[in-house]
């Protein structure tokens, strides 16, 4: 054995000599080549973006060409399938081989935060005000994306509060019911959906609320929690931050869901349903709670099974604290600019100028709908999409380029127009997450493990395999595994802010 090991060593040594002999001629630093291009000619901008479609925007797309002309930029986009985007981004960040800009879908992911803290990305915050469009960015959202109070990127705008109810209007009509306005009425309607044969087929085959596990969160739970007077993730009470699952409203929501489960008003297999929308698509459920933008898609899908289906959107359900709804973060990912590939401030400014131009009204609309006369036409002011797959492929994932969306014309259907209206209404009653701007190091390191403890206990409680005492034990476990540290760190951040 020993002899073999020695021999192994000898072979290794001999061959590493061969290797070093060959490896002497290292290539010169050819990566990026950004500096040279900064002054001469148009800006050469490489970027990495997620694609959500089976087909990608062709490199010679007329939309892309027009975007290049209008912004005076030479774009080179590398698309990454959305389903592996985080893996690829994580590997790309780790290898340090980043393009000049990329989208970080989750700017608070630990690998982004850590990289930002070591100075990997340009801090763009101070520059924003010198650009006409970027200066209009919302302070609230900028705070939400900040890391240790610094803004390391340009966020991609979304409406602040997009959540609401997508309800089967045809079922309401069949049962002669009014749209629910309070939590109690909501329960009554759901119960009727489950027991009153709303689809008139003479069978007990419907349920009230469709529930699935959307990325480990029980669909609708956070929204009903807010309707019932609970907080959005964290509650600010007497100057102290308390996590949602330690509030009374959370327990009430748990009991509400448990009741729905026990009375078979929600699908009994919700714990293994990855996407609750599939229950809606089958035409078996009457209500779905999530991003109301999805209403049209859901209606289209149910219509394949039940052509009479009609979806309506509702946003105001009043509870103990009146009309409330959950605010989102106001953005979907942000563009970041790494210092490893953009070496000079001058080039940084050029890139920010590009982002500023992309936020102009006509470019916003072009990236959303394409070019008039090509991807769509306007007939008497109404929008008609070009159905030719080749032409429409040219705008695929175009919205991934967008920064601000405030001047997009809405050509949508009735349902889409309504959702825009309700988003605006939502913003007047939205409850924000008071801890959104803060970063807890413990949460960054252990957040996933910790949230699993609570998520699992929540499911178990609803399904009746854990009682209130066991739920409390889970909360205790959460505190001990690092939760109390998270609370401490969040409050410290909050106190720091209060001092200022």
């Amino acid at each position, binding site marked *: 054995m020993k002899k073999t090991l020695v021999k192994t060593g000898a072979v290794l040594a001999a061959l590493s000599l061969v290797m070093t002999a060959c490896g002497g001629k290292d290539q010169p630093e050819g990566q990026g080549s950004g500096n040279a291009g900064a002054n001469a000619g148009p800006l050469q901008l490489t970027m990495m973006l997620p694609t959500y479609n089976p087909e990608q925007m062709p490199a010679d797309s007329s939309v892309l060409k027009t975007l290049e002309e209008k912004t005076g930029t030479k774009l080179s986009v590398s698309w990454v399938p959305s*389903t592996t985007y985080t893996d690829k981004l994580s590997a790309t960040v780790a290898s340090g081989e980043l393009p000049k800009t990329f989208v970080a879908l989750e700017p608070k992911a630990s690998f982004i935060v850590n990289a930002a803290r070591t100075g990997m990305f340009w801090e763009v915050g101070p520059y924003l005000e010198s650009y006409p469009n970027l200066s209009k960015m919302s302070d609230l959202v900028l705070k939400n994306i900040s890391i240790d109070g610094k803004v390391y990127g340009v966020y991609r705008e979304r409406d602040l509060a997009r959540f609401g109810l997508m309800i089967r209007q045809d079922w309401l009509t069949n049962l002669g019911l009014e749209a629910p306005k309070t939590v109690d009425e909501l329960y009554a309607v759901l119960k009727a959906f489950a027991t009153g044969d709303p689809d008139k087929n003479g069978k007990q085959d419907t349920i009230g609320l469709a529930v699935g596990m959307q990325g480990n969160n029980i669909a609708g739970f956070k929204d009903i929690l807010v309707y019932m007077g609970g907080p959005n993730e964290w509650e600010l009470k007497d100057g102290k931050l308390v996590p949602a699952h330690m509030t009374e409203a959370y327990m009430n929501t748990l009991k509400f869901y448990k009741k729905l489960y026990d009375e078979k008003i929600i699908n009994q297999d919700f714990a293994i349903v990855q996407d609750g929308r599939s229950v809606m698509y089958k035409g078996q459920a009457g209500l779905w709670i999530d991003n109301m933008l999805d209403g049209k898609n859901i209606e289209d899908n149910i219509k394949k099974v039940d052509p009479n289906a009609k979806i309506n959107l509702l946003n105001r359900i009043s509870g103990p604290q009146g009309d409330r709804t959950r605010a989102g973060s106001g953005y979907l990912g942000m563009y970041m600019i790494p210092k490893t590939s953009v070496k000079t401030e001058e080039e940084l400014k050029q890139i920010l100028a590009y982002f500023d131009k992309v936020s102009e009204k006509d470019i916003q609309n072009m990236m959303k709908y394409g070019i008039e006369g090509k991807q769509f036409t306007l007939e008497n002011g109404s929008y008609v999409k070009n159905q030719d797959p080749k032409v429409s492929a040219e705008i695929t994932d175009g919205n991934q380029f967008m920064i601000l969306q405030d001047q997009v014309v809405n050509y949508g259907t009735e349902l889409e127009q309504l959702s825009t209206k309700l988003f605006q209404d939502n913003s007047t009653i939205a409850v924000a997450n008071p801890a959104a701007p803060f970063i807890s190091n413990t949460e960054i390191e252990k957040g996933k493990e910790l949230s699993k403890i609570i998520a699992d206990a929540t499911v178990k409680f609803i399904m009746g395999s854990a009682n209130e005492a066991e739920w409390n034990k889970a909360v205790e476990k959460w505190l001990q595994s690092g939760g109390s540290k998270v609370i401490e760190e969040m409050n410290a951040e909050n106190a720091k802010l209060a001092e200022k």
Partner: protein
Amino acid sequence: MPLKQSWGSRIFDSVNATLLIIFAVLTVIPFIYAIAGSFATQKELLEKGFILFPTEFTLDAYKYIFSTQTLVRSLLVTVYITVVGTLINIFFTCLMAYPLARKDMDFRKPILMLVVFTMLFSGGMIPTFLVVKQLGMIDTYWSLLIPGAISAFNLIIMRNFFQQLPDGLEEAAKIDGCNDLGIFFRIVLPLSMPAIATFSLFYAVGHWNTFFNAVLYINDNTKWPIQVLLRQIVILASGGIGDSTVMEADYVAPPEQSVKMAVIVVSTLPILLVYPFLQKHFAKGVLLGSVKG
């Protein structure tokens, strides 16, 4: 084959065959489901969930996937990678496995240990990425062909196969004036067709399933293999919104179930056809004549 068979032998045969047929039917169900689903309407798939035969036939799914430029292009990419990659694999694996099977070679044990060690320990994804990058292979097909040129697993089993060749072969060939290279190409390789067929299949399937390396090493989406497309469609259609960790995700209307099934069928059929083609080589192994027990 003997004409007379004992009763016990016949019962043994029929029980054996029955069990195997049951097992085969059980394993093939999902694929039949995929085929049936690819021709079915969204309505039927949603209402019934599971079908083995659609009541209403439609070709919409296939029309759709062939109307995109992506499908055929990525299939061609995969075929290219599979054919060229497998040739490279087989050549280098056999070339290295044979000397290691020769008892008269020095240092074979340390070399084998070096190989086995790489099966257990690896530097990880990122350092490997950097090596590929430094060799200038990023965004070229080489990045999908060379970094996996030899599988340690296949190498070790290949060596084991070579060891089962009769000892006398080499001596005889040497007397005839062959050097080791000649023995390898003219005698050992032709005698090892079952093993080569087997490992061709293993490597080919490995290349056919190339997915993550392509995402990692290839930035140009026109060079993506079929699995990248397949995975994207299957996951989106199964309810993944892309990145489940992203709270504010824009919901994307998922592809229809039938499209998912059609892509599964189209991306699986070609590689399935490889096996029956290689099977005939398995029977040829009988020519080997001798085996050491």
